């Protein structure tokens, strides 16, 4: 208590206060010094670092994806278009709570578990601050609902993107093909240059021309420096380098001819290829059944995909370039020409056909398809017209297989045709060397008999048969088959791969024989020329179906149907000035002349009944020296519809 009652000493108190305050002033000065030092450290010493940081904050380099090149048919009809589609995207770096955001989005738009799953996978391999797609193809309603709630959804954006659209749907599924989202496998195969080129681009060509012309269709990526605020909203564009749109492709294909060929094939499985004899341009490219390429563009649903994959009719299988079939008797005209050129047969050669054939020193009997034979005096023309097997066996027995192989190669068999489409199969035309290498056994004379009839080891794609036919029609000039007629309006010249040298009268003989197939009394392909006011030359064929393909399910009805022979027909028209060559395959169609020939007829009828200016496209390349090419009075009636335009269309 005594302390409490102590007299207050005014001066001591003041001294104490002064003392403590001086210490406090010292503290204040030191701490203010710390603040000044801090400002100095931030604003002077580390100025450059923070300046960069702040610029990185606000300035983003955004890739501007190029517009994918459009694809037209020869008449300027759009086959592959770009249409805007709205994509819901999320910038992970701008979202504080991702789960909550996705939960909220799930209430605003339709989100499936699969979408979220895919999104999470995409998140793993995104670049920083890159918008990651969560849902494609938003509806108008969904876009509205998101924009209303935009305030609660930082980092979420709806982006308009141009996606591929194929207006003709199924018609060009196998030829034009489709694009799809770049998948992990493709991404991991990207070079650094590819990574740069595909910045901002979500799609890549997967199948068909979309794949083989990917480099040209893609275009060159542009970029822009944009200023954004903290929520990632773009405020202004500081600098922009425009992208270069992809090249425009004009195809040889003709939409109407494609339709006609497709309809003529009806419900059958099979293939139709029509080739412009003068250029090798592919006018029709049908593989039935087909599929809607639009399904694949933004990711096919599992249900749709398994339906396509598991169908017994294998709609995803490109029969034109991947289907390898025994070509059967369709090889006979080519073999006949080879035999003539090699001197194995001549115009006078006649064979008696008792209905069977025997090789010397071989007990085996080879039976003609016609049990009682074709008669006693079968020459080349009748041999072709009636498809007499014995005539060609007789020739093959006297001919060297390696020479036969050589002829077939010049007509395009046994190797890839070199068409501008991906994943083409080479087919097979045997030789001694091949058999020794592949089978380890020597060549037997009986093998030649099978080979000359397009059976045994021989396999060919419908495209190869069409090229072979076009080469015959061209009297030996073998063009590389081409899908693309012009790139950005620049015509692509045809390319001659081989020339088969033979005297003109040999060609005349083969022409005559093929014409007889269609027009003679015993001809096997009379339906190919029915009611046409121009002459057609053709050859039927039948390919035996050897076994059941692996993996096919057993179904007795379907199996019976699928054990039937394949029907084949190759033809060209008109005989006096060939324009178009066609090969037709009808799987399990049995009779080439009965089932396949009418399909060829429809194609010829449509193509030849058009006014000339329609069939001869504005862009068609004409060999300057050719006399046989029809000279069109108005080679360029209209300017090319979209040669060099760029930008968005549709």
């Amino acid at each position, binding site marked *: 208590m005594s302390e409490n009652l102590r007299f*207050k000493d005014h001066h001591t108190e003041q001294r104490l206060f002064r003392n403590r305050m001086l210490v406090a002033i010292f503290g204040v000065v030191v701490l203010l010094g710390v*603040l000044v030092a801090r400002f100095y450290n931030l604003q002077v010493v580390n100025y450059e670092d923070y300046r960069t940081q*702040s610029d990185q*904050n*606000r300035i983003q380099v955004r890739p501007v994806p190029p517009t994918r090149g459009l694809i037209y048919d020869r008449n300027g009809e759009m086959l592959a278009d770009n249409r805007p589609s709205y994509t819901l995207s999320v910038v992970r770096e701008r979202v504080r709570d991702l789960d909550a955001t996705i939960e909220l989005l799930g209430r605003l738009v339709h989100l499936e578990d699969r979408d979220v799953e895919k999104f999470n996978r995409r998140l793993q391999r995104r670049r920083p601050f890159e918008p990651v797609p969560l849902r494609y193809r938003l509806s108008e309603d969904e876009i509205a609902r998101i924009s209303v709630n935009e305030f609660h959804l930082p980092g979420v954006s709806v982006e308009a993107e141009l996606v591929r659209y194929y207006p003709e749907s199924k018609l060009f599924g196998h030829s034009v093909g489709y694009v799809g989202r770049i998948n992990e496998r493709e991404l991991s195969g990207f070079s650094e240059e590819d990574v740069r080129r595909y910045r901002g681009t979500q799609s890549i060509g997967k199948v068909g021309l979309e794949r083989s012309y990917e480099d040209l269709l893609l275009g060159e990526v542009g970029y822009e420096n944009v200023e954004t605020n*903290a929520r990632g909203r773009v405020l202004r564009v500081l600098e922009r380098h425009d992208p270069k749109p992809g090249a425009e492709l004009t195809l040889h294909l003709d939409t109407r001819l494609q339709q006609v060929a497709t309809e003529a094939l009806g419900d059958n499985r099979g293939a139709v290829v029509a080739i412009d004899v003068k250029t090798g341009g592919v006018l029709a490219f049908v593989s039935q059944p087909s599929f809607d390429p639009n399904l694949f563009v933004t990711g096919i649903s599992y249900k749709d995909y398994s339906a396509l994959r598991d169908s017994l009719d294998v709609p995803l299988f490109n029969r034109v370039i991947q289907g390898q079939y025994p070509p059967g008797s369709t090889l006979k005209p080519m073999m006949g020409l080879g035999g003539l050129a090699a001197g194995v047969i001549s115009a006078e050669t006649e064979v008696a056909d008792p209905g069977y054939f025997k090789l010397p020193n071989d007990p085996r009997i080879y039976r003609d398809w016609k049990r009682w034979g074709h008669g006693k005096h079968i020459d080349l023309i009748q041999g072709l017209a009636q498809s007499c097997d014995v005539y060609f066996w007789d020739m093959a027995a006297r001919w060297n297989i390696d020479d036969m192989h050589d002829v077939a190669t010049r007509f395009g068999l046994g190797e890839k045709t070199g068409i501008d489409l991906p994943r083409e199969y080479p087919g097979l035309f045997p030789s001694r060397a091949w058999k020794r290498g592949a089978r380890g056994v020597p060549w037997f004379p009986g093998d030649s008999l099978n080979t000359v009839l397009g059976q045994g080891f021989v396999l060919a794609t419908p495209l190869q048969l069409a090229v072979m036919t076009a080469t015959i029609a061209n009297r030996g000039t073998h063009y590389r088959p081409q899908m693309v007629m012009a790139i950005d309006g620049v015509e692509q010249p045809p390319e001659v791969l081989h020339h088969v040298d033979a005297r003109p009268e040999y060609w005349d003989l083969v022409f005559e024989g093929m014409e007889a197939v269609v027009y003679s009394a015993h001809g096997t392909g009379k339906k190919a020329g029915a009611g046409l006011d121009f002459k057609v030359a053709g050859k039927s064929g039948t390919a035996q179906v050897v076994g059941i393909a692996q993996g096919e399910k057993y179904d007795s009805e379907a199996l019976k149907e699928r054990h039937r022979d394949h029907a084949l027909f190759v033809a060209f028209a008109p005989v006096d000035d060939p324009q178009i060559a066609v090969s037709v395959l009808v799987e399990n169609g049995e009779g080439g002349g009965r089932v396949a020939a009418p399909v060829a007829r429809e194609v010829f009828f449509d193509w030849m009944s058009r006014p000339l200016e329609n069939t001869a496209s504005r862009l068609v390349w004409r060999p300057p020296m050719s006399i046989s090419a029809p000279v069109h009075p108005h080679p360029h009636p209209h300017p090319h519809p979209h040669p060099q335009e760029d930008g968005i269309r549709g």
Partner: protein
Amino acid sequence: MASRDYMHRLPDAGSSLRRPESLSRRWHIDLPLLLLLMVLAGVGLVVLYSASGEEVHYVKRQAVFMGLAFVGMVIAAQIPLEFYRRWSPWFYLAGCCLLVAVLFFGVGAKGAQRWLQIGGFRFQPSEALKLAVPIAVAAYLHKRSLPPSFLTVIGTLVIIGVPAALIVRQPDLGTSILIATSGIFALYLSGLSWKMIGGAVVMALMAAWPMWMWGLRDYQKQRILTLFNPDADRLGAGWNIFQSKAAIGSGGWDGKGYMQGTQSQLDFLPESHTDFIIAVLAEEWGMRGALILLVLYLLIIARGIYISFMAQHVFGRLLAGSITLTFFVYVFVNIGMVTGLLPVVGVPLPLVSHGGTSVITLMAGFGILMAVSTERRRVLF
């Protein structure tokens, strides 16, 4: 108790040396302090205009608050110090009652109850305690012999501790610490012995670990951790500091120009018009601007310290000293936080940050400072 009042009689009381009173003296206005505060408030409004994204609305609102605050300051300056001293227990008790009421009836947001709502009017009782606590401590010590005895120190700590604990419960750790600080400054200035100060520091260090383990909430720990490693979570807790440092640093010496700060104008800087407003100033006006602001604060503090030195009695001296040093702590904590030296606590930059209540409390404090300054010649009984 009243019997001891004669002790405070000034030796020259009733001196006949009185000069004619100047206008400012008659209105109890300290002119240098008033001028400095007006310059600071003006600078604050200019920076706020840019920081709010050129929203006149904010600036107008803030200007109205500033006007009210200046009026409040003048009123506070008119009240004799003796009144503050006599009524201090009642201010203090009323404040504590309001704090208890906040715990039961308070409203608020983000998990904290800090406000009382009466009709359409809302206020934050903790603001009133910012003044009530130093006044109560100064008044308490005024009547004790100094340097304070151990018991007096304990008594003071109780006076400080009760409201501080109530405010921590809201929870509002930042305000609680600042209020405690203002009381402790008064205690310190009264001549607390260095032994006790040393002992307190040692105890504080020893208490740090249990405090960390059990005393702090997760978000509070997070803020402290962020301080040491702001780059660890740039988009989470470290975002604010990362962005404010980028704003300040990118301002450089010259600054990006008024309303040209990309960090603040493009919304990268969070809370740019409230707690983080110094970053806007530093970004747009550069280090020059930051130094000018610091000099302004330094001058105000210097004037406050001068007033406390000139005070003629313990109550005025302790109160003026405490108010001035607490003001400095506001400035230091805010700038330290924005520049990444201190953890993020919600302390506004005095007179510059947007926000009405804090301005009014601050200016009332300066009013009391002026009351101290102009009462020098008055006899206190």
